[in-house]
């Protein structure tokens, strides 16, 4: 086992490095890293652009125990190039998912922290995302529960948002954001009337973890603690829906219903009103305890995904 890094760890998920998250999610001392920094998996693309790389290309992968159960874990380092997917970065995750399917591992914890494709690796990064999606489908088909954890500074954007949506279950904290196009991207392409990226309240009401969990875009909400993500993962793994034609059809029906009911809403508060529920006080201002008392939309709990 190797456990590089400082020993004095705090439990805050947002502040932790990818390696601290991977280690902290698992039983103490049980994490074994695959292709660690000493293997020097640096991106060949970044070097071509005269950019310095990272020895693990910004993703930590490995195996360990979750309450004694063998699981695999992958954690993106959101501070290195925004956690973006490059060719090697993606290949490490694809390999882990394929190994999980081949070895019938019960679960893969996927700690996403990414803005999407690494621009310098454009097509290779896009292909990496596609291969990850394919590998998640194959792993789920083989019975592996793939659990997305979103609570880092980069959130899960671009292809990372699509990857989150393809997982068996999504766990999010208040710091986590999930979407595909980022706020600035939407504003640049569709104009400020479509989405005002400088309106931080709007950005968080639409993409933020608290809203996502209330509206069913995430399956569980946790406080910003590694231990809370761990407990939620343990609770969600047995609930992971099987990946069958029926579950896909159920998900399609669920999303169609959501689109029909809320497709014209321009803000999370409108969705709330449309659902006939009292609009909550600004969700971001609530304490964790008060937030926990809010009821989710009736359809937020589901067997689909």
């Amino acid at each position: 086992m190797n456990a590089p890094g400082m020993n004095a760890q705090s439990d805050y998920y947002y502040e932790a490095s990818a390696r601290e998250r991977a280690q902290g999610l698992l039983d103490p001392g049980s994490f074994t890293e695959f292709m660690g920094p000493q293997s020097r998996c640096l991106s060949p693309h970044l070097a071509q652009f005269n950019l310095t790389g990272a020895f693990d290309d910004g993703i930590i992968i490995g195996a360990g125990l979750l309450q004694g159960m063998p699981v695999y874990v992958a954690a993106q380092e959101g501070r290195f190039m925004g956690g973006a997917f490059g060719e090697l970065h993606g290949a490490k995750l694809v390999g882990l998912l394929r190994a999980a399917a081949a070895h019938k591992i019960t679960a893969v914890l996927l700690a996403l922290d990414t803005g999407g494709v690494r621009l310098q690796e454009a097509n290779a990064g896009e292909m990496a995302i596609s291969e990850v999606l394919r590998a998640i489908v194959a792993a789920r088909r083989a019975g592996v529960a793939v659990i997305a954890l979103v609570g880092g500074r980069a959130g899960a954007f671009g292809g990372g948002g699509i990857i989150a949506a393809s997982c068996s279950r999504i766990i999010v904290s208040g710091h986590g954001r999930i979407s595909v196009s980022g706020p600035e991207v939407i504003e640049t392409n569709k104009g400020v009337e479509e989405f005002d990226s400088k309106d931080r309240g709007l950005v968080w009401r639409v993409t933020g973890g608290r809203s996502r969990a209330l509206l069913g875009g995430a399956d569980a909400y946790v406080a910003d603690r590694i231990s809370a993500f761990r407990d939620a993962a343990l609770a969600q793994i047995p609930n992971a829906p099987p990946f069958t034609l029926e579950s896909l059809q159920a998900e399609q029906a669920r999303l169609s219903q959501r689109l029909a009911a809320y497709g014209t809403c321009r803000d999370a508060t409108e969705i709330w009103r449309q659902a006939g529920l009292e609009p909550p006080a600004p969700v971001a201002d609530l304490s964790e305890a008060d937030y926990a008392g809010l009821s989710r939309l009736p359809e937020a709990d589901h067997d689909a995904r």
Partner: protein
Amino acid sequence: MEQFQIRIEPARPASGGRRLASLGVNASGNLELLVERSLPPGEAVFDIATAATGFRDLWEAVISDLCARLPVGGLHFSINDGGARPDVVGLRLMQGAALMEQPA
């Protein structure tokens, strides 16, 4: 980007038994450091890839400061730097050397 290697002959071999330490992140104003116990005890090597070009003199000064303070013989330091200031570089190097002092 600039890449270079600094080799020194430290007076004392590193204590402890740890084989490997990794810390920090290659981000703006920060750096990633990998330390391996892989060299003869009378040698230390620093392989540096830095986003800031033209500061080799400063790197040499910070590294000689580290070697005056801590025994680093036998250690191989590999760095991916995102433009960390000298004080941050010094701190990371000290952290890395301190981790290697732990038992295996």
